[in-house]
């Protein structure tokens, strides 16, 4: 079980993190390490790309929640793209979609 994480600088403070493989309890720490520092860039704009992610379990959701909270604290915009219908459903049920929408529209307002 392996994942590869591509970090790409798209412009001034504009970052893209793409994950290939399966995110589970073994690989989630790696994602956390790659993702969280980018959420701490004040005024940054970060996108997590899940197009090449085959599977993710609840530990992966945990990392995304931590990233969302950290982004909001540091006024960094954070969005997720490339969700499969199943992952999308999981985001909708748990309320993560609502939180993500807030993170995108409020420009990382810290008062959520």
């Amino acid at each position: 079980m392996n994942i590869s994480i591509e970090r790409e600088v798209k412009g001034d403070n504009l970052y893209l993190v793409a994950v290939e493989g399966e995110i589970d309890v073994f690989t989630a720490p790696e994602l956390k390490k790659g993702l969280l520092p980018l959420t701490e860039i004040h005024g940054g704009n970060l996108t997590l790309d899940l197009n090449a992610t085959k599977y993710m379990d609840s530990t992966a959701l945990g990392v995304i929640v931590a990233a969302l909270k950290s982004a909001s604290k540091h006024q960094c915009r954070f969005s997720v793209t490339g969700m499969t219908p199943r992952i999308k459903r999981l985001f909708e049920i748990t309320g993560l979609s609502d939180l993500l929408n807030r993170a995108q529209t409020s420009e990382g307002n810290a008062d959520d």
Partner: protein
Amino acid sequence: MGMIEDEPRLTAYRDLLARYVAQDSTFSVEEIERLSEFLHEQDVSPDELVGMHHDALEQTFANPDRATLQSLNFLMKMMSGYSNEYREHQALKNRQKQLDTEIDVAAEVQKALIESDLPSCAFADIGAVSVPAKKMSGDYYRIVNDDGRLAVTIADIVGKGIPAAMCMSMIKYAMDSLPENKSGAPSAILSSLNRVVERNVDPSMFITMFYGVYDPVTHIFSNASAGHEPGFYYSAKENHFIDLQARGLSLGLSPNTQYSEYSRKIDPGDMIFLLTDGVTEIRKDHDFIERKQVVELIRGSMHLPAARIVRHVMYELKKMQQFSFADDFTFIAMKF
């Protein structure tokens, strides 16, 4: 090898070897056992032992075979790396055993924390089953008689294993000590719990929870959900299953979250089924089981008592996954 200290050992080894090779009638196997025990006590490693054998051979026999001596040198080098690996492995195995014991104890403590008898009530037949994927569970459920009403909670701590289990214990105590717990509205209870979780839990952890209350006087079932996998409501009149839809943020995502409350009239013969996502995220042949397959399993057994429905559904789902669950699994059935 330091020659002075090692000399007596080598002598003992050489003499025993010589007597063995000469097929001396006084030789007994116990002598080998005693010597090896002694060498072990003296911390002689396996590669040193091979070296000792090499030296003894050289000293004992006038013309030892060169190839044999060389092969012993080879074995000694081989043994040196091998015994390091072996020792490390043994140490890890011991450590593992110790951890396993600790986890077993923790799992027992957890079981004692959650396990309680289902309340007996005249107006509903209730069944519940909860199995951890590993030893400890991140699922939680609670079914209690709350001032004559039936209160049911089902929750899934996101994450698995020990961290999730520890979080689960916290939730249990938070629920037991909520002032709203007595006859409180489901939405108010979830709001309070959300504050507790938000303040006390690691930012990457969150909890999905469904809380419902049935009032046997009004026949109303009211519920609120904090991001939990929807359960099923079965209407006997229409012979039809629908999702128990309810929206709300999972506990611990955001402070001051408000929850909507939903209610429905329950008629005799109606049923409610609650589950954690271990139930619907079960993988079958690399694919996921659809919710409608779970409904089919329920349909096939809903004539049975509630306790048997939950066992039947669990068994069938386990069978689909070759009898092991990848996620904690909890399933509750209530027949009115």
